[in-house]
């Protein structure tokens, strides 16, 4: 893995956004060659989305030939509810950029047949040629998407019941009222994310530090599902100082020592004369 440690949340968000930008630009997407991106929701990626929007507004990045697949969505929450992941993606990302609606994919938590919806989502990913870069976060309980502790590490997109930790963590979005938080969600599986060509996990804040420790310094364990990515050939963890608080000093020093190499990945692309 690559462990990228930045000073604070803003720097981590910017690094991640630049990385995504460069990946898309290097890929040179076109009408017959879409870049497929897996996307998360939550407070962690907000800064990254803001930066990506900035790059679009500056004319440095276009999402015209980008297809997106979100990780998850609540079950039973109306699509236009302000806390649905559809609303999140629209307000925090889609409405600010030039992505076409038909190129975005978010699981439908109100589908008549939930498992069929999940199967169909897997097929759409396959039809799009697989995911080039899957961006995700980590829960305080070490979960990726809604793959709660105990989820199979080879799971696919399916319906999951949310763990107590997750419901409590999400209550802040529902006026602190635990009873208002949905109890089930549709989520991509650990296996689904493992199929991506590259995986980038964003982890910021001291409250995520223990989960990061479990994910990268302990073994692969279905109780901390992010640990599965120890077995992925191209994983990159982007975090801030606070998220490293539970790691060994040796680990942190090793990866910080490599920043000058890793920073090459986020250098501004050589500017080309703008095409007409």
């Amino acid at each position, binding site marked *: 893995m690559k462990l990228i440690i930045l000073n604070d949340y803003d720097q981590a968000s910017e690094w991640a956004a630049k990385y995504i930008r460069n990946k898309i630009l290097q890929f040179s997407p076109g009408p017959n060659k879409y870049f497929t991106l897996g996307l998360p929701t939550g407070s962690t990626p907000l800064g990254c989305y803001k930066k990506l929007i900035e790059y679009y507004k500056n004319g440095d990045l276009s999402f015209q030939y980008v297809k997106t697949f979100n990780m998850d969505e609540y079950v039973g929450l109306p*699509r*236009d509810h302000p806390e649905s992941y*559809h*609303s999140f993606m*629209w*307000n925090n990302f*889609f*409405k600010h950029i030039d992505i*076409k*609606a*038909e190129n975005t994919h978010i699981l439908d938590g109100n589908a008549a047949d939930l498992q069929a919806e999940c199967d169909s989502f897997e097929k759409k990913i396959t039809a799009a040629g697989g995911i080039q870069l899957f961006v995700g976060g980590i829960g305080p309980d070490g979960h990726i998407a809604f793959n709660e502790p105990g989820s199979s590490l080879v799971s696919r997109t399916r319906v999951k019941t949310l763990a107590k930790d997750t419901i409590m963590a999400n209550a802040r979005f529902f006026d602190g009222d635990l009873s208002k938080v949905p109890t089930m969600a549709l989520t991509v599986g650990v296996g689904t994310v493992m199929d991506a060509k590259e995986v980038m996990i964003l982890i910021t804040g001291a409250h995520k530090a223990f989960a990061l420790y479990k994910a990268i310094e302990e073994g692969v364990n279905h109780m901390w599902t992010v640990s599965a990515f120890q077995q992925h050939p191209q994983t990159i963890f982007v975090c801030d100082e606070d998220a490293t608080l539970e790691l060994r000093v040796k680990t942190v020093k090793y990866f910080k020592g490599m920043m000058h190499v890793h920073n090459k990945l986020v250098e501004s692309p050589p500017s080309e004369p703008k095409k007409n």
Partner: protein
Amino acid sequence: MPSNKSVSDAPITQFINCRILRDNELQREDLWVREGRILDPEKLFFDEQGYADKRVDCGGSIIAPGFIDVQINGGYGIDFSQASEDVSDGVSFVAKKILEHGVTSFCPTLVTSPPEVYHKVLPQVKVHDGGPHGAGVLGFHLEGPFISAEKKGAHPEKYLRTFKSGGLEHLMEVYGSLDDVAIVTLAPELPGSQSVVRELSQRGITVSLGEHRVLLLVSESVSVQPGRFHALSNPSVSAVVQFHHRDPGIVGLLTSDRIPAGRAVYYGMIADGIHTNPAALRIAHRAHPSGLVLVTDAITAMGLPPGRHTLGQQVIEIQGLHAYVAGTKTLSGSIATMDMCVRHFKQASGCSVQEALEAASLHPAQLLGISPKKGKLDYGSDADLVLLDEGLNVKATYISGEEVWRKGQ
């Protein structure tokens, strides 16, 4: 290729680079319009996979719901209370002109007149939508003749009336028809008024309490009658505000605790800087900000250039924002335009931009019971818009999503 056409084929316009008045605040959001109404872009995106056909760059302007003037007696030489053959033309002429002031809907107002005038004028104008031809007519505002002699102001005393027995029938005799009437101003202290108020409210007509120097109790009991909203019309409040600690009068009504839940009290104010003392504006605004409705109460001379004009039986002299009876210092009425009133109200009361704009759009719409169709920029609201600069000067006016006036054209 705006959408997968699952809902509609109609073209979609997206206003960008603007600040819109929504949920009582100015939000940095784009405004989407289709088929004359405000569109929900999130639904468009997810349900229809649609996007805009046309983008309008607003250059940082503020977009507010179009202004609604519920008390305007005429303008540009036209007097709505004149019993002429071409009332409709006169109303249309003014309707077109007031687009320049950001007004997209209005209530042509008739002052106290003899029955012949009502019988002649009322049938000539129907409620109708606005468009490139002019602002929409929401219905007449009949100010009088059932108002009290004590507070007649500029209304000719000889035409004032009281309710004879059989209140509403008498009213119908005088007016002839109530089909296209939106507001009736009457004096609640007149005997027989209570049943009239009830009947008018049942017909969906907003009842406005005319000037009265009556004790709080009587005016309150009228305002809590079954009926939608009740407005206080105070064309000459500068002469009238009498706030005595034992008889608070109209001012007391603004903060009454006897208004039942679900009802509201609204009050009209002319914020032209002349007819209402700035202190009175501030007090009223602070006492009951959500009930303040800006009205122009404009007279025939509004919109005319400075100098002398003969209007009907009167000669008026216009100097700046003042219209005097020629040769005197007696004010003959208000000639401020709605956008001037909005600017002046903001400056005199120290209120926010949002509050000033709502006083000219949201509140009149709520008063008439036509919100959120009008007076708001909610999804589904009519796309009657006014684009303003920082100083609240009108840059362009839209009705049903179509540009009907632009500055400089």
